[in-house]
């Protein structure tokens, strides 16, 4: 509500910054043995799609839980839609919609019964329940399945229904915690289609977490989070530009000699990734002719790619997201056990 009034006064000054719908400052969260979030600050403005990108266990879900009032911060503050998540829990809850990584549907109820349950808990006025139910189910293509038990739905359909339910009470902010995790590639892209359509249809700010690089591309801005800290925050394009280097991969007859030769003649540090000798240089296309001219090892193939978010992640955290995931598996197991076992 507050966001709405601020937006109203903001319209007379076009270039003024939009009001922050989410603002977080010096937020920390400590569990007994782990500091899951270690002092983060960021703002999300109205209408933005903001992504938290990081490996599992980096603190993404913990941050979402604090923003959604499911967990309380150890220190620092978080405001959502103008309300403090600590002192105005109900106001925050009224203004947000949530889609969690694991299902929170009652699979013994029909799709429509799940939505009716939600409508009552959020005090959606009775007169608009029916049209709004139709609207959100149409949006995710499930209107014709409204009378089916949710237990008969596939994983992708359940996720779509959760998105519809999260939107039912017309929240100002939609939180999506790993919205496509555990889904097959086709379903993942169809979920993204619904999310992107949504931005056109509803006046909504989207906050999402993901550990898929390609999905982070859908965001207006991304915060890269690693070990509980934000290491970079910007648009995907700006982040990629900040890396400034192209990635070159070559297939050679003798990788070890090639790596040694690269170090010797060009001073380049290369390593074998995905079965190819991989290294980064400032402008790939201009480098390739020199490479052919000067490298003594026969080259079978070469590819040059612009920096991806993978490279961005690598340059800010020093490891690939997959390597980072492996190292936090143990932390995750502990946290998963606590999440299941935690008192809420």
């Amino acid at each position, binding site marked *: 509500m507050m966001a709405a009034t601020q937006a109203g006064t903001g319209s007379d000054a076009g270039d003024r910054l939009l009001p922050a719908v989410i603002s977080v400052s010096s937020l920390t969260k400590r569990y007994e043995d782990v500091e899951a979030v270690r002092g983060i600050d960021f703002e999300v403005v109205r*209408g933005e799609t903001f992504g938290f990108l990081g490996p599992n266990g980096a603190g993404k879900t913990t941050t979402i839980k604090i923003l959604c009032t*499911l*967990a309380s911060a150890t220190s620092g503050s978080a405001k959502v839609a103008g309300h403090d998540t600590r002192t105005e829990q*109900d106001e925050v809850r009224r203004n947000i919609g949530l889609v969690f990584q694991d299902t929170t549907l009652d699979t013994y109820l029909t799709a429509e019964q799940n939505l009716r349950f939600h409508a009552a*808990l959020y005090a959606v006025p009775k007169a*608009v329940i029916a049209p*709004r139910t139709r609207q959100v189910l149409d949006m995710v293509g499930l209107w014709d399945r409204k009378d089916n038990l949710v237990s008969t739905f596939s994983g992708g359909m359940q996720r779509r229904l959760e998105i519809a339910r999260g939107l039912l009470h017309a929240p100002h902010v939609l939180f999506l915690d790993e919205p496509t995790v555990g889904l097959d590639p086709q379903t993942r892209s169809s979920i993204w289609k619904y999310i992107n359509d949504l931005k056109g249809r*509803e006046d909504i700010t989207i906050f999402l977490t993901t550990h898929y690089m390609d999905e982070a591309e859908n965001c*207006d801005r991304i915060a890269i989070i690693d070990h509980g800290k934000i290491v970079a925050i910007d648009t995907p394009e700006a982040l990629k530009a900040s890396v400034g280097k192209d990635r070159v991969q070559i297939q050679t007859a003798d990788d070890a000699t090639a790596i040694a030769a690269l170090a010797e003649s060009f001073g380049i540090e290369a390593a074998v990734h995905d079965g190819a000798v991989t290294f980064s240089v400032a402008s790939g296309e201009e480098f390739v002719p020199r490479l052919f001219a000067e490298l003594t090892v026969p080259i079978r193939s070469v590819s040059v790619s612009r920096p991806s978010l993978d490279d961005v992640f690598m340059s800010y955290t020093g490891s690939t997201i997959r390597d980072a995931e492996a190292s936090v598996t143990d932390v995750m197991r502990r946290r998963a056990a606590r999440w299941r076992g935690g*008192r809420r």
Partner: protein
Amino acid sequence: MVTQVAVAAEADTEAALVAEIRVALPEHGLGHDLRAVNIVWRRELIRFRTDRLRAVTSLIQPFLFLFVLGTGLSSLARRGMPAGVDFKTFIYPGVLAMSVLFTAVFSAGSIVWDREFGFLREMLVAPVRRASLVIGKCLGGATIATFQGIVFLALAWFAHVPYNVVLLLTLIGELLLLSFTLTAFGLMMAARIKQFQSFMALTQMLVMPLFFLSGALYPLNGLPAWLSALTRIDPLTYIVGPMRHAVFGYLNLPARDTQRLAPGITWGSWVVPVGVSLGIVAVMGLVMMAIAIAEFRKTE
């Protein structure tokens, strides 16, 4: 930042075009809480209706107690019973209480299930008081358990208990109170227990002793001191007593026989009145519900 302004402005105009359905949530009020209580209650009913197997299986145990154990022990018990009183009649009120026991406690256990399968989070992030959720759940459990009890109540004739409207209404009221308190008890346990199996194991472990100590199968007078003391601290005693009192009030037995079989609950030499007895059960239910609400209010 310029791009964000553009994105939001575009969203604004788009939103204006499609916002024919306006969802404006009202300010928080009592009506909202009642709606929440109602929907949580209704969900229990819907789920019970779709789960017929549970309805049938939870009636098997009281059925066995009344007809198999009751009939089997009748010949043995006949010598202790006054002429014309069936042992089945004697144990009927206790077994009737049993018919709601498991249904009530396990319906509360579904919240552990909800926690494991995530639905609890849908409830906990909603802008409603935790009390509304717990009260709805309590009433839901009480309703379905009482419904179960009513099915068993229909069998009263087989235990030679008369179908008297006042008696039946009294028993239904007492079943409702019992079911409510048992659901509250279950919720209190469920608030702390995280796994459904543990909940089942723990409640099984607690529920059977509660039943056996309640005097459901034997009169409360003339017991050894240790057993007598245990029966007095069992909350179920305070509902089985009034239920038996109600049934025996309609059997037209000599006062002496009624006194022997349904002596009432005594503390020392003081006979606890039925009203006080029911009051104890109600207060316990409310206290346990309050504990459950406080538990669910805690955040991580």
